[in-house]
């Protein structure tokens, strides 16, 4: 693996390999000394052109636990706000000597442009690009499901036959896209539940079945219910009449939570809008994996950085 740009590029074997490496990283995260020397002497740049706290901190923690040096670059207040192009920014960083780039960008496809251009020859990890993909989030979601469902027998396992219901703003969600592709690669069945205005206008978006009624979808007794955040910053159109109506039709309310089966996992990529897409009771339920997802995020990102920065470096090797 050189770059990680999209979960659609990952084969089943590659995805399982990343998750298995993440298992070893998770074991390290339980030790007294949570540090490995694997990336000692390497420098990773967190190149964030879009606001993010948890993803950046998670990547930073992951890189530091592998002993890499981390440079945080936020576009706000940098030369980018003076009009510097991506190419010049990256070449400037490259001249300082860096070994990997973790990139978040508001434009879909920006990390791929960077990975394929010859401005700099280092691994690029996509930390979210526009409304396109967020591959490490999908990997940590899959990792969390695998751990909950398979326990100690997780290593080497896929998610065959696991039925995952993804609820909410599929149209704008890079988490939904990355998850839909990765989960299907791992053998899971993905269904979306959302109002038609928040779904791509195709029959089976990303190969998933669609419900427009959350209660019908929940009656199918899914193994996992994953809520998506209502992204206020992308709601620049009338996608639904008002937040209360959204909650009534598509929120995981206390009443809906009570009807879920005991084994159904409740997942949310965070940050949560409590009371909007997820009720407080649902978020704090023992079936909820929200906090585990954050912990697993560090392990999965350690695995991705480790594999990207120490892996085979054939020049211009294709993605993942």
């Amino acid at each position, binding site marked *: 693996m050189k770059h990680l740009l999209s979960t659609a590029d990952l084969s089943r074997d590659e995805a399982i390999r990343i998750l298995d490496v993440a*298992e070893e990283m998770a074991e*390290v995260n339980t030790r*007294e000394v949570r540090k*490995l020397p694997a*990336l000692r002497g390497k420098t990773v740049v967190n190149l964030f052109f879009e606001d993010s706290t948890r993803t950046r901190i998670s990547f930073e923690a992951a890189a530091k636990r592998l002993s890499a040096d981390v440079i945080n670059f936020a576009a706000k207040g940098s030369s980018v706000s003076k009009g510097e192009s991506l190419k010049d920014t990256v070449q400037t960083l490259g001249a300082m000597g860096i070994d990997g780039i973790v990139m978040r960008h508001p434009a879909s496809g920006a990390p791929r442009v960077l990975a394929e251009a010859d401005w700099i020859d280092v691994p690029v990890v996509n930390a979210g690009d526009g409304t396109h993909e967020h591959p490490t989030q999908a990997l940590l979601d899959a990792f969390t499901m695998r751990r909950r469902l398979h326990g100690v027998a997780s290593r080497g396992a896929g998610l065959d036959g696991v039925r995952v219901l993804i609820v909410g703003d599929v149209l704008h969600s890079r988490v939904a896209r990355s998850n839909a592709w990765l989960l299907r690669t791992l053998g899971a069945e993905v269904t979306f539940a959302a109002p038609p205005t928040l779904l791509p206008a195709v029959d089976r978006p990303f190969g998933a079945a669609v419900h427009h009624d959350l209660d019908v979808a929940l009656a199918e007794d899914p193994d996992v219910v994953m809520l998506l955040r209502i992204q206020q910053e992308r709601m620049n159109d009338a996608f639904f009449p008002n937040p209360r109506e959204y909650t009534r039709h598509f929120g995981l309310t206390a009443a809906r939570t009570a009807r879920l089966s005991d084994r159904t996992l409740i997942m949310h990529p965070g940050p949560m809008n409590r009371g909007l897409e997820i009720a407080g009771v649902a978020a704090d339920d023992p079936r909820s994996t929200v906090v585990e997802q954050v912990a697993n995020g560090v392990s999965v990102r350690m695995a991705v950085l480790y*594999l990207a920065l120490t892996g*085979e*470096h054939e020049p211009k090797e294709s993605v993942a």
Partner: protein
Amino acid sequence: MGTRTVLQQPDITRALTRIAHEILEANHGASDLLLLGIPTRGAVLAERLDRILADIEPEWSADARPGADGRTGSGRVGTLDVTMHRDDLGHGIGRAPHRTTIPASGIDGRVVVLVDDVLYSGRTVRAALDALQGIGRPRAVRLAVLVDRGHRELPIRADHVGKNLPTASDERVTLRLTETDGSDEVVIEQRMTQDPRETQDPREPQDPREPQDPRETQGADA
């Protein structure tokens, strides 16, 4: 490429039995002893040593409890992965780490016996010592290997050796074990034939030194 088998299954079993006795003798009994195998074949050897020690030393399994893997055993055997501590990471060799499982007792104040298959450059053992530091502080660390083939690149020696095998650096020593490879044997493969009598395949060209694949050389020591 000439291949000769230097140890067969009974030889390996005898060597391990002797190592087990040596470990007990050097430690004056079983107290505080832990075995940590270096994956993959060192881990298999550590499990075999664990079984042998359980047979020959009543004290070994006296305080039997669930081991690192959850099964009830002596609770004294685990695995130590050294991948992340190697000094050749980032040289284009993608390595997936293996599992590290530490017995529930932890390693603090214990006598840890590292178990590996072939001792060669010593770099794996250096990485293992480094990996141990992140886990705890043993009272002492000893090293048991099935084969010592020489060519050390670091000041490291084994405390317990199954067999000393003087080899040339262009030879490759491979341990095969039933658990991982279907049979028990140690073979030496020759990458370049110097003595024509040893050429088993006459079609094998006696060409000059072929470039060594760093992965294979490392593999012999892994």
